[in-house]
Every structure is written in structure tokens, then in C-alpha cells.
């Protein structure tokens, strides 16, 4: 079988020599020379826009580099398109899964092959897949639709697919962003073992220092398109890496924690709701957030956090239970949100908290455009809207070409800042946040976390749902773990234990 034949040839090394990529006047990649030795895990670090994706797109043949060469296995090669990269044994696992949800794992594997037969003899294919799987360090259920897979299983299948296709150099683009710490450790551990066995070379794009330290042999750091540092992981500290990534920019320091928690603001009792598939549900028996504290909800995505968020924002109806804010029943109407000063920063704010095609001015005015002091107004005041938007943009450093530009033209970090500006303006009693820093660079992350901490210190009750355990550990006063739609564990942040929380996230008691 060709697949076997190519695999046995083992890992290959890849080297870029003076790789330069210009888009018009912009130099996205500036003479990057990087050597990735066969059979190693090489981490590639860098902020958003540092040139990581440009570099790997040049390697994979999506872009043709303006200057510079690519060496594969010690020989200079031309990669005009992704197909020829694949033929050389280069493969990439994207941050967003490229599996087809309604197909089974086996169907996904077979159809991804260039030489998939016109009529598929499933008995023979399954037998061949089983022998392939038997040689792999990890496996997935072959006959189940990918839709039913957890994120970890999908990620494993993506990697298996690349091996099945005979790739010997793999680029993993933030492979653990959707995994639990345990799953991440497991997947990366397998990847590392494959590399040590000499079957695979991996270029790991990540922004998690923990993963670099735990899994990579060598690391390269890009900043503004240039290679600013590289070396063996053992010789570098986290501080070194952070300095290389951010350069001389100062990161916003989170304000110190002050004050003690006050009266309960949000209390949820016995809430039941169906999830998106309608097959499972969430059941929150008791949840309380007090003024001046941050309660974190950790959990793997798909364990009901999104549904809980939607229940609180009013996007999902409940079948039973009570939600109270400041002691009175809360049904998530606009009026109630205003009276009780409840604000939200949902995940994917461009879709859940904005109208993408309306302007920034209009979007940041949603909380107040129809208010005149405390009463309602009929005629809008464009001038007032604009001046308020300008104030917010200045205070929250929203960078937009123009405040009249559509919201969808802003970068992810700026959308996040704009929504946060809208939601944190004025007094806030309750702030509900979901994955506020997903996909943002270090500078934006630090700033947004500082704002959340400042809100807490001024007496706001904050409920923070996040898949990033580091974020939960850094920000919260109390940690809850959600698993299978229920709150499975609770502890104070002071006594929180990373390993224990990780186990609870995975559903182990």
C-alpha cells in the first residue's frame, strides 16, 4: 500500500532560506531563515500579524514567496501550489477543522485520499484502516459521524488523516486551542512520540508557553515579519520568550485584587434548558455570583457553557428554574437588563453582540440610543451617539479606520474592545463574559483582562466562562467546573488545583 510505503520513509527536515514575502508595500515576511531538523517538534511563536501564517502559507504553497528558497529533506524544491507540497510529504492541520461533520471518520479518511476509488469496497477499506490504526499511538471510533466527536477526537482525527495521507512534515496551527489541558497533553504527547520515533517532523504554531516548554525541542519567534530569536527550548525561559514576542511593548498589568465580595447579585436555581442539538440539556441547580467577585466557569467547549450563556442573555428559553438578579426575577428582557444593569460579553461578539453591517457608532450605542437620561426617546440624536462613540473609542483604544465603518471591518481585538466599551460604560452590577480573549494577541488579552479586574474591584459581579484554564486561574475568585451540562465541581481560586480541575472538566469525579 502506498500509504505504508511513504510512511516508512520517516520524518523529513524542512528549511527556509531568506524567505521574504511582500504584499504591495507591506513586508509580511522579512528574510526568515529557519531550520527544522527531522524528527523534532519545532515551536513557532509570535503575536497575531507577526507573520506566522504567511510563513507557513509560503511553505505549503498557498503563497509564492517573493524571495527565498525552501529546502525539503536537504534538497531545494519548488512549491507552486498546495498539491505539490502534499506530494513532498508536507501537510498542515488547520486551526479550524477541515473534517466533514456528517461523514464518519472512515469516510472522511478515505475521501481525502487523492486516489479514492470510484466504488468504495467498505469491507476492504475498513480492514485496511484498522491495520493503519493499529500502528498509531492513538485511535478514534471509525464508524461514527465526525459531528458526534469531541474537539479532542476531531483534532486526533485531523492528525491521523495527515499520517494516513503519508505526510511526514506536519504544521499544526494552534492545535490545542479547543482542547482541555488533559486532551492537549495527550495529543501533544502522541505527536511528540511520533517525532521521537522518527516518523514525523512537526512545526507547532502556538501562543501557549506551557506547550512550548513541555513539548517542543526548539523554538523560533517571529515579530513583525522578522525572525527575532530561536534556540533550544531548554536554554530559554518563559520570560525570554515573552520578551522576544512582544518586544519593547509594555503589557497592561492586571490591577491587584481589592475589596471583599458583597451581596449576591446573580442567583440561578434549578434551571433546565435544552442544548442546541435538542438531545441533551443543561441543569444548573445553584449558581450565585456576588458583587465584587469573579466566578469562573471552566470546561471543555460543548459541555453546556454556551447554553448557559444563551440562557442568561435571553437567546435560549428555559424549561424550568429561576434566575434572579438583585433579588428580582430576571427574564433577560432589555428593560430588565437596563434596570438591573446587567451586561454581556458573549463569545464571537461580532455575531452574538453586534450587527456586523451597522457602523461602529451604531453598534456601541445599542445600550443607550433610545434613552434620553432615564426616559425613552423617539427621535435619535446622531450627534450624541457620535460623541459618545468617540469617547468610548478613546477610552478603550478602539482602532477603526472610521467610526462610521461597519463593525465587521474591525479586527477581532477591536470588536472585542468595542463591545467591552459598550458593556462597561456606566455602572454595571453584573457582567457575564464568555471566552473574552479567544484568538486575541498578548497585548489585547492583557488589556481586556485588566478591564475585567477593574470592573470587579469597583463592585461588579462577574461571571466568566472560559475554555482557557490559565485565564480562569489568573482572574477568578471562585472556580466552577461545568461538565455534561452540570456544575460538577466548585472551589475557591486560592485552593484550586490545575490537575483536579482538568480531571473534573473531563468528567472524572
Amino acid at each position, binding site marked *: 500500500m502506498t500509504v505504508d510505503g511513504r510512511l516508512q520513509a520517516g520524518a523529513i527536515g524542512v528549511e527556509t532560506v531568506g524567505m521574504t514575502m511582500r504584499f504591495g508595500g507591506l513586508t509580511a515576511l522579512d528574510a526568515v531563515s529557519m531550520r527544522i531538523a527531522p524528527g523534532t517538534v519545532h515551536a513557532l511563536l509570535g503575536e497575531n500579524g507577526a507573520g506566522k501564517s504567511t510563513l507557513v502559507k509560503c511553505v505549503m504553497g498557498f503563497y509564492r514567496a517573493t524571495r527565498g528558497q525552501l529546502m525539503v529533506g536537504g534538497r531545494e524544491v519548488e512549491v507552486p501550489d498546495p498539491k505539490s507540497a502534499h506530494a513532498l510529504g508536507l501537510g498542515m492541520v488547520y486551526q479550524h477543522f*477541515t473534517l466533514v461533520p456528517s461523514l464518519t471518520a472512515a469516510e472522511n479518511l478515505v475521501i481525502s485520499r487523492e486516489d479514492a476509488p470510484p466504488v468504495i469496497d467498505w469491507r476492504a477499506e475498513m480492514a485496511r484502516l484498522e491495520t493503519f490504526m493499529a500502528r498509531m499511538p492513538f485511535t478514534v471510533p471509525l464508524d461514527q459521524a465526525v459531528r458526534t466527536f469531541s474537539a479532542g477526537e476531531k483534532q486526533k482525527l485531523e492528525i491521523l488523516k495527515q499520517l494516513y495521507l503519508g505526510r511526514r512534515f506536519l504544521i499544526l496551527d494552534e492545535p490545542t486551542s479547543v482542547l482541555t489541558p488533559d486532551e492537549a497533553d495527550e495529543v501533544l504527547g502522541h505527536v511528540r512520540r511520533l517525532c521521537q520515533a522518527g516518523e514525523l517532523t512537526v512545526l507547532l504554531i502556538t501562543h501557549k508557553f506551557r506547550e512550548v516548554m513541555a513539548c517542543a525541542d526548539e523554538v523560533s519567534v517571529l515579530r513583525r515579519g522578522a525572525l527575532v530569536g530561536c534556540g533550544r527550548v531548554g536554554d530559554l525561559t518563559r520570560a525570554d520568550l515573552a520578551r522576544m514576542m512582544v518586544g519593547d511593548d509594555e503589557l497592561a498589568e492586571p490591577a491587584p485584587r481589592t475589596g471583599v465580595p458583597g451581596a449576591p447579585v446573580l442567583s440561578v436555581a434549578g434551571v433546565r434548558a435544552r442544548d442546541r442539538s435538542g438531545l441533551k440539556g443543561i441543569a444548573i441547580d445553584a449558581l450565585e455570583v456576588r458583587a465584587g467577585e469573579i466566578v469562573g466557569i471552566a470546561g471543555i467547549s460543548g459541555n453546556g457553557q454556551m447554553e448557559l450563556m444563551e440562557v442568561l442573555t435571553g437567546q435560549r428559553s428555559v424549561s424550568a428554574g429561576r434566575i434572579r438578579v438583585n433579588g428580582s426575577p430576571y427574564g433577560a428582557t432589555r428593560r430588565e437588563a437596563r434596570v438591573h444593569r446587567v451586561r454581556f460579553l458573549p463569545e464571537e461578539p461580532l455575531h452574538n453582540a453586534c450587527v456586523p453591517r451597522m457602523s461602529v457608532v451604531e453598534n456601541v450605542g445599542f445600550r443607550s440610543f433610545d434613552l434620553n437620561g432615564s426616559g425613552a426617546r423617539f427621535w435619535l440624536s446622531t450627534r450624541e451617539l457620535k460623541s459618545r462613540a468617540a469617547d468610548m473609542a478613546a477610552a478603550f483604544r478602539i482602532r477603526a479606520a472610521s467610526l462610521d465603518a461597519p463593525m465587521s471591518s474591525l479586527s477581532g481585538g477591536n470588536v472585542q474592545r468595542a463591545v467591552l466599551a459598550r458593556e462597561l460604560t456606566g455602572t454595571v452590577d453584573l457582567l457575564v463574559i464568555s471566552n473574552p480573549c479567544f484568538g486575541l494577541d498578548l497585548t489585547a488579552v492583557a488589556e481586556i483582562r485588566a478591564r475585567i479586574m477593574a470592573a470587579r474591584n469597583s463592585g461588579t459581579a462577574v461571571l466568566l466562562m472560559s475554555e482557557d484554564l490559565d485565564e480562569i486561574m489568573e482572574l477568578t475568585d471562585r472556580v466552577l467546573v461545568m461538565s455534561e451540562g452540570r456544575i460538577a465541581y466548585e472551589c475557591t481560586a486560592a485552593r484550586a488545583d490545575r490537575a483536579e480541575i482538568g480531571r473534573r472538566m473531563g468528567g472524572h469525579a
Partner: protein
Amino acid sequence: MNGTELGLWAIPLAILGGAIRVSTPFLFVSLGEVLTERSGRINLGLEGTLVFGAMSGYAIACVTGLPWAGVLAAAGAGSLFGLVHGLVCSLPRVNDIAVGISLMLLGTGLAYFFGKPFIQPVAPDLPALELGWWSDLPQVQAALRVNVLFPVGILAALLLWWMFRATRIGLLVRVVGDSTDAARAMGLRPAFIRTLATAAGGAFAGVGGAYLSLFYPGSWNEGISSGQGLMAVALVIFARWNPIACLGAALLFGGAGALGPALQSVGIPDGYYLFYAMPYVMTLGVLIATSSPGRAMAGAPGELSISK
């Protein structure tokens, strides 16, 4: 023996016969729509394709004297309509639903225009299988007089089901229908595959039309279709995009449509027109019963504009 001796048994018998007779066009159109929708597009124009298929099939059968030539012509005309839909929808920022509606109107309009001279002449009928030969009862014989296209349709349903499961083409159609991103990452051209799937789907709808004009009711006129092309779209959702379930759904719809005439045949004329509305009432009922405000439709192809 006569109808009164058969007693109330006449009702299920008439419903069965009616179900088989009426369901065939539903079956073909819905199979075509399943193929199109599995590739990620909706073709609402199949009603127009059906009517145009009925006209062109009848016309060619008239001219050549060969009913099967008519069926082929209807399939060809149908695939042409599908091709137009597929090509237009491959242009950027074109909405498949809007294109479908305009093609539906274009198809019926063109069929009336070209079909005027064929309202009078009589075309040869498609052959039927006399599956009721074992019985002396004329009702049984009439009910089991099954057109050849019905078993062909059953075969097509089984073939489509097998194709989606165990052929490269079938899997590729499902890939582009479920995830454009995954298809692109695989180096496929989604628009190309969708266009071909829509063209093939149109051919199915054309054959459904030929059945109408060449067997039941068996003549060409402007009122030949009573919305089967549109109902088939609802039927596909009801059948959850599964070709074999389409067969069951088509029979169910056909049976519901035959309820009125069946009751009339045993002398229950009350509510005749109400029973005529049965398939439509059933469609509404089924769609309401299987809908849910909180959850996405199970089995819906991911790239469908109605389920995105």
C-alpha cells in the same frame, strides 16, 4: 363481484393503488431534490422543470410515437434547467432560492408557450405492469396496474442511497454539501460539483413530469401539475435527505392524495374537496410536528442556505 361486495376493503385498495399512481412524480422530483440538496443547494425551480418535462416528454412522444423517447427528452430538458440553475448559482452573491423561483415561473411559462399545439393530439402511453393478474376483481387489477416508472423510481432511490454511501461521487457530493471549507481544503471545486448535482437532479424532475403527461393523468394540459414540484421540496425535508425515506414519504403523500377519490368510490362524497387537501394538510402537520425552535434539523446538509 362488484364494488359493494368488496365492501370497505375497497378503501385501502383504492388508497394503495392511488398511492402508487400518484406517488411516482413525487418520488422522482424528491429524489432529484435530495441529490441537489445533498450537494448544498436548494432548487425550488423543480416545479417548473416538472411542467416543462411533462410538455417536452408529451411532445416528443407525440412526434416520434415512442413514449420512451419522450421520457428521455423530458430528462434532457430537466437536466438543462438544472444546469442553468447550477451555473447561475455558481456566480458570486447569487441566491439559490431566488433563482429557483424565477426558474419555476420560467419553466411553466415556456411549457405553456411551446405546449399549445400539443393539447389536442394524443401521445402513446408508457407501458404498465399488470401486477393484479392473479385476481379476478377488476378493482384489484386496476389498483395494481403499475407503471414501469414506479419500479424504476424504487431502483433509483436504492441506487442513490448506495451512491451516497459507497461511491466516490456520492461521498464528494456529501462533502461539498456539508462543508465548503473542507471541500476546498481537499482541493475540490464545490461550485462545479453542485452544478452537476443540480443538473442531474433536474433530470429526475423532468422524468417525473413525463410520468404525469404520459401515464397519469396521461395528457398534456396547463393544469397538469398540482404543485408536486413544490411539495417534493417539503417531502425531502420530511424524509431527512434520505433517498429511501423519500420513497416512503412519496407513498404516504400519494396515499393521502388518493383518500378523497377512494372514499368517493365507496359512496362517501362528503368533504370531497377537503380530502383533496389532505396531502397539503399533512405536509403542514408533519412540518409543524417535526419542527423545533431550539434545535437544528437533524440530517440537514450543512451548506444548505435554509439550515445555515
